[in-house]
């Protein structure tokens, strides 16, 4: 077997094991909460009889291990259970919400990743000169402000001062792609500003590290233009660290955008999760937790695989 295939399979296998471990943690975590679902539904004033009845009805009297495996078995068959608060099928609810979140994350990533890497390359080209300082300063400023502040500033500037966009980014099925993109422009902008700095700075640092190498000197002594040296000779050797940071930020775009969703009233996973946490809707919280973990682990495996593929020593063994 080609060593790359083996390495990739190994990573994917490890990811699956990790996901299983996370599912145990999520289950244990919700299990360890004081009171149980029945208590949560019926409230503090519930009689012991009604509690016992509801527990029976919900299957809470079976041992925890059995419930865990039932839960896991259901998930493997696409059944995430039913919501306690409104009795709807969680999988169907989440499906739509996840779609919306991924839509937002996708467009933010499509803009932010190339922009961050491009700015990183420019910063290296003009390192310690004004373009570098300007880029570093701006990105640092946007990452230092909490995202809701960035959100409100952007909203104030682009909906109140200059009335270009609507402050509400609620999309629905009937919209065309163009309408949808116009609607989500503001949250995308905020997300781009938030994730830009981290990726750009990592790109800059990783390439500067490579710029110390002897082969960069070789390229300089060939009379190559500085930007060509950075893009053609330095960047390919800096892919591994950059990809890892890019993936962390992509994961953030999926699992960490609660605040931005709330600010712009965007119907995504984050809002859905927050709503149900406040209602102690345990099956929904568990399902969301598991999906977030899967996204996180999946993207990190992808980062690992790309790093492996970017290494010519592994791609072309002796």
């Amino acid at each position: 077997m080609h060593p790359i295939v083996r390495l990739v399979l190994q990573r994917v296998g490890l990811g699956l094991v990790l996901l299983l471990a996370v599912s145990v943690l999520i289950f244990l975590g919700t299990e360890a909460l004081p009171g149980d679902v029945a208590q949560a539904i019926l409230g503090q004033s519930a009689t012991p009889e009604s509690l016992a009845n509801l527990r029976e009805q919900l299957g809470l009297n079976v041992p925890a291990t059995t419930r865990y495996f039932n839960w896991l078995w259901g998930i493997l068959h696409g059944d995430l259970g039913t919501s306690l608060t409104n009795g709807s099928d969680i999988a169907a609810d989440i499906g739509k919400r996840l779609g919306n979140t991924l839509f937002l994350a996708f467009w933010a990533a499509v803009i932010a990743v190339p922009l961050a890497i491009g700015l990183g390359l420019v910063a290296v080209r003009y390192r310690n000169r004004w373009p570098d300082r300007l880029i570093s300063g701006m990105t640092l400023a946007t990452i230092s402000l909490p995202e809701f502040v960035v959100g409100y500033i952007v909203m104030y500037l682009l909906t109140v001062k200059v009335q270009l966009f609507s402050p509400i980014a609620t999309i629905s099925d009937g919209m065309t792609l163009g309408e949808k993109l116009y609607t989500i422009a503001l949250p995308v902008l905020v997300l781009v500003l938030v994730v830009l700095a981290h990726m750009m700075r990592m790109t800059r640092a990783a390439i500067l590290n490579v710029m110390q190498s002897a082969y960069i000197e070789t390229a300089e002594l060939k009379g190559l233009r500085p930007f060509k040296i950075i893009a053609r000779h330095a960047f390919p050797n800096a892919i591994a660290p950059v990809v890892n940071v890019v993936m962390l930020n992509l994961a953030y775009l999926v699992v960490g955008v609660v605040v931005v969703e709330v600010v712009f009233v965007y119907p995504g996973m984050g809002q859905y999760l927050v709503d149900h946490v406040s209602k102690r809707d345990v099956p929904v919280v568990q399902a969301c937790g598991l999906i977030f973990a899967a996204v996180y682990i999946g993207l990190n495996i992808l980062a690992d695989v790309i790093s492996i593929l970017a290494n010519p020593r592994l791609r072309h063994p002796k």
Partner: protein
Amino acid sequence: MLDIAGKPLLDIRNLKIGATVYPPGERPRDVTLVHGVSLTVEKGKVLGLIGESGAGKSTIGLASMAYGRGGVRITGGEVFVNGRDILKGGTAGLRALRGREVTYVSQSAAASFNPAKRLMEQVIESCLTHGVMPKAEAEKRAVTLFRKLGLPNPETFGDRYPHQVSGGQLQRAMTAMALCPKPDLVVFDEPTTALDVTTQIDVLMAIKEAIRDTGVAALYITHDLAVVAQVSDDIMVLRNGKTVEWGTTDQIINAPREPYTQALVSVRSHEHPEKPPAAEPVLTVEAVTARYRSVPIDVLKNVSVEIAPGRTLAVVGESGSGKSTLARAITGLLPPTRGRIRFAGRQLSNDLAGRTKDDLREMQMIYQMADVAMNPRQTVGTIIGRPLEFYFGLRGAERDKRVQELLDQIEMGKGFADRYPAELSGGQKQRVCIARSLAAKPKLIICDEVTSALDPLVAEGILKLLLDLQAQENVAYLFITHDLATVRAIADSIAVMYKGEVVRYGPKSDVLAPPFDNYTDLLLSSVPEMRLGWLEEVIAHRKMESAGN
């Protein structure tokens, strides 16, 4: 041979080069590296620049491309290439010069190739960047150069990545890369220094033929006078950024005028008389076989050697022959899979964990890279004092007294105990490492290429110190090296290693006397000799032999 305008190809006038240094704990200050050096190279000629490290030879070589490494900058003088002062051309003018009129071959080709790109892409890059020729033609020229430089499978060689070919092949590929855009001048910066002698001779011949066939001029930078004598028409000897002597190769080698050049020429003639064998060996290695966990091949095969007290066993061989692995097996860092090690009359555990503190104390090591073998944040006194505390429990004034004794032994007087490694020269660092190993009062010191990173004159001083200490302390040395001149200077007995086996072993006088086995013959005949025409003789001799077989 002057060109039409009557001007030399490269004309450096009164070149001054400086840099800013940042000594630890002091304010940064400007230093001058090159103090007004002038030289010329005419078309098709080779000028050898020779000197110790710090002589400024690489700095001058790079200055011919108006390039300064790190904070190095040209502070004065003029550099004319093809009649143009390149220091006045601006960055665009420099880009047009670099990789087109002047190209560069570095010491470490392995680091100078981009690991992420195929060799062909890198070799023809300057041709394409400067529009010298179209891609197809450049690739054809590269293949022709690969063939001329004796690279295997020249047609497909360029499809490989740098990590897929050997160090000697990369050095040749870098020469091809430098010659591809048909430059007027190539700067060779120690191109064979990192190679084994057996590889060096082939690369040297390839470079020499390529220079002759393409008619290119060259600056050939090296610290090895015997090497530069083989390839250059003229030689300039540099020291501390100044010209010591400049003349034809014949004059420099056969009739050096300056005392410093005379010292360089004579440095290799030192020979240590072999001591008579002693009765009881201090170390006996019996049929040791060892392998690394990740590689299913024996790196050491059935190795048996012994060393007597106060004697030196030199282990020679090229890189990958298992010399350092033998040291690791003896010290227990790599437990042998088979075989036994007897030391000071007792059986040693193969495994490091099974050895007593005395076992560890009586066997010490000195490494090639003295600066990475010391903690940069500890003073010399702390570094040497550590084994005194650890093995003998010495503290305070008693310890300091012993540290000073050891410093006196390595001929480094008072005041050194408070210095940090960064404040020492390469030779002084290696002396401190010697003192540290001596502090443990060992019976055996394993010296792993301890002089390889040092300049010839400094290395000679270290070897002399080691011999003096051996006479005083009766300590035995296992001396690992790839340099046969060093072997002659220090060894009592020699083990020649090849592919994990000892192919020749015995007293120095026997090992270095004919008849030789094939490998020892190859090794011995590959050591450059300081006379004109040596390279051609050896190559011709080898061709004749292989034709005869």
